[in-house]
């Protein structure tokens, strides 16, 4: 009997040894192609991978040759969505859609540093794209800006290779109008997912809503151009980018009434309305905030929430709460409609959305420690002096009163000895911000002289002459007194001590830069 027990025990042990080695890897799937693939909400501990395609899972790992952790995806708003959790901060991960055990090493992303920490390489490298969505812009069935977004991207890549050591982008911020003309799902595909596929599978996209995300609206073309039919009354035309609605459900892609699925932007992107990425929960994906290491970023909604008094007030109060809680080194705010601009046909003295954003929000930015504000909408580059307290129209601007001055009493340029200090040397507090309009990542405005008496649809004499913006050397190509009409994008670098912003043109040249030090 004793022998039998010993024999059974030995058999059991043998079986255990042969059948229970380490658990088999769950990553035995096939790498599967996707139609669109992008990242959302990459934090210190989590990330979202979204795609369109057959695959229903993703495998990840810290080596491209050994992916060992599998996450299943589910369909959310027409996209496969995998929520990755339990990640390590500031760590590089590789992934394979479809759940294979190895991957092409270019399918990779790096998690955010712990809040408050600087990334291991000492710098958060941020790329900003305003009004880049022109690849899908059409008129009369003809594409009007083919390849322009691509050359701006190439300009950035050249700059990055030549002057930034090919540092990977940590954050990609969109300034609105990133899918012309109506922001349909197909336009997002053509103007965004097909233009930046390699970049957006490695870095999270953080967008904001522009007027061209919000479909088509009506316009009386007679106001623009008189013609015989106008004698009988207005001639209405549905035109992309002129919706004045505060309701995302009113999204209308072609002028025949609201579309079934609502606003495509809100289906495509998965944004942290509940504070998932470190901001105060806003309760709406239309505006949100997040932390990335020592940088706090806020995306406001100047297109929808800004059009309704109650919603604008709620957004403003939320911003105050969010900024009051924020103690990170740097704060960046993005939204579409510029608070100061004399862009061609986008005048912040005239457009109500711009006036409302300036009057309601600029005082909050200055009082609550915002460093940089980025807008798009006008297809040129304008960058302000280091400002405080200018909340009226352009003719109320006074450099002596509203701008940080240099030793000569002129507005400081923010370079070299005139670098800006986060705690302003003039006031002794962090009460100033720089406002940049950078809406030329897909096209740049060109002068269109006005005919006698014409005030609309042509270049007015004050084009790019907003006095709150820095001046430019008139010999630079495309330069106007207070702006540059050139295609390009913006790169921001945030270290522990400096926040640097550069405007990069399509050739990879830096046309403007400034530094804030702390």
């Amino acid at each position: 009997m004793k022998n039998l027990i010993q024999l059974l025990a030995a058999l059991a042990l043998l079986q255990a040894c042969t059948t229970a080695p380490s658990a088999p890897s769950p990553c035995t799937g096939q790498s599967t192609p996707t139609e669109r693939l992008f990242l959302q909400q990459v934090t210190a501990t989590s990330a979202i991978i979204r795609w369109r395609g057959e695959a229903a899972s993703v495998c990840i790992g810290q080596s491209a040759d050994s992916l060992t952790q599998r996450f299943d995806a589910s369909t959310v708003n027409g996209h496969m969505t995998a929520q990755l959790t339990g990640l390590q901060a500031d760590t590089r991960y590789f992934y394979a859609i479809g759940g294979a055990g190895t991957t092409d090493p270019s399918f990779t992303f790096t998690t955010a540093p712990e809040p408050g920490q600087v990334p291991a390489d000492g710098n958060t490298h941020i790329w900003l794209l305003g009004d880049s969505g022109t690849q899908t812009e059409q008129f009369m069935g003809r594409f009007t800006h083919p390849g322009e977004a691509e050359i701006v991207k190439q300009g950035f890549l050249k700059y990055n290779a030549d002057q930034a050591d090919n540092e990977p982008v940590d954050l990609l911020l969109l300034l609105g109008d990133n899918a012309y003309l109506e922001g349909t799902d197909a336009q997002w595909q053509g103007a965004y997912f097909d233009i930046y596929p390699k970049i957006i599978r490695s870095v999270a996209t953080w967008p904001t809503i522009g007027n061209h995300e919000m479909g088509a609206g009506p316009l009386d073309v007679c106001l623009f151009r008189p013609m015989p039919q106008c004698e009988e009354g207005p001639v209405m035309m549905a035109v992309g980018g002129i919706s004045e609605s505060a309701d995302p459900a009113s999204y209308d892609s072609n002028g025949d009434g609201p579309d079934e699925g609502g606003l495509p932007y809100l289906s495509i992107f998965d944004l942290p309305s509940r504070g998932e990425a470190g901001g105060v929960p806003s309760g709406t994906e239309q505006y949100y905030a997040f932390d990335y290491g020592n940088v706090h970023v806020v995306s406001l909604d100047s297109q929808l929430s800004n059009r309704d008094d109650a919603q604008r007030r709620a957004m403003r109060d939320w911003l105050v709460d969010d900024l009051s809680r924020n103690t990170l080194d740097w704060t960046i705010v993005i939204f579409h409609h510029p608070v100061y601009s004399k862009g061609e046909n986008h005048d912040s003295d005239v457009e109500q959305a711009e006036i409302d954003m300036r009057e309601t929000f600029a005082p909050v930015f200055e009082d609550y420690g915002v460093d940089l504000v980025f807008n798009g909408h006008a297809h040129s580059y304008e960058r302000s002096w280091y400002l405080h307290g200018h909340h009226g129209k352009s003719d109320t601007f006074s450099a002596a009163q509203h701008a940080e001055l240099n030793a000569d009493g002129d507005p400081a340029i923010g370079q070299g000895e005139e670098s800006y200090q986060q705690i302003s040397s003039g006031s002794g507090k962090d009460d100033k911000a720089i406002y940049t309009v950078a809406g030329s990542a897909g096209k740049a405005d060109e002068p269109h002289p006005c005919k006698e008496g014409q005030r609309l649809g042509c270049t007015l004499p004050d084009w790019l002459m907003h006095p709150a913006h820095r001046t430019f050397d008139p010999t630079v190509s495309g330069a106007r007194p207070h702006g540059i009409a050139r295609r390009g994008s913006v790169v921001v670098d945030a270290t522990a001590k400096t926040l640097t912003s550069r405007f990069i043109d399509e050739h990879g040249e830096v046309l403007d830069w400034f530094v804030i030090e702390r």
Partner: protein
Amino acid sequence: MIRLLGGLSALLLSLHGYGHAPDETTFARLSKLMEAAPDSQSLNLQRAALQIRSGHLAEAEQDLAQAARLGDSRQTGLQRGLLAMARSDHHMAIAPLTDYLLVHPDDPTALLNRARARTRSGETEAAWRDYEAFFRVSSQPQPGDYIAAATLLDATGDTEPALNLLDEGLTTLGKQPQLLRMAIELDQRLGRLSAALERSSALGVLLRHSGDWALTHARLLAANGQGDERQQVLERARNQLRNLRPTPARQALLARLEQALSRRAAPLPG
């Protein structure tokens, strides 16, 4: 007019993008479409909607009258309501919106607009019923919508239902500071100090016990007779603020905290 110009210049921007102004073919095509309109109620309605949104109210009225002749006139109610609201004639908007809701009872746009029209016309009870229906059917209610509706209820003295609505909003949208703040204020007004304190503690977590939060929370603690706790909350906030980079908001807050702390000796109520 300014709003219209804003919209206009967006078009001009796009037209510039094309590199040239629209040519005659566009207008010919457009006119053809307009010629097809007179027989169809929906096309007339569509054009009326376009007219209203671009400020051509007299023309919209003509299209709506024509549309009403071409079918069930109740179908024109939404646009007639929006037309009246565009003219700031909120009371006149109610009847057509009601017509429309008879045929489309769950339309969120009509419900929200009738709620607003009734609010502005002083028909608060009916306005509230519309908000209630709106929140039942809307897929994307915004924080501002909940606050507007709760403010309406509260103004009529219905504080309890206002609180219930805010709680509903907090469930739908997730915990969110603006709705929580209003709920705290209402709880306090109803004398429910412990409920207000509980909410305020939740808000404190959301706001990482920011100085601004500390001031409100301290007031609640004082009202609840918790003088020592009040003092601790204020001191912690002051000490935290002193170590933060000075901003105008933080300096103002610090002054308010110091002032509140200096009132320590004051006798506590109750």
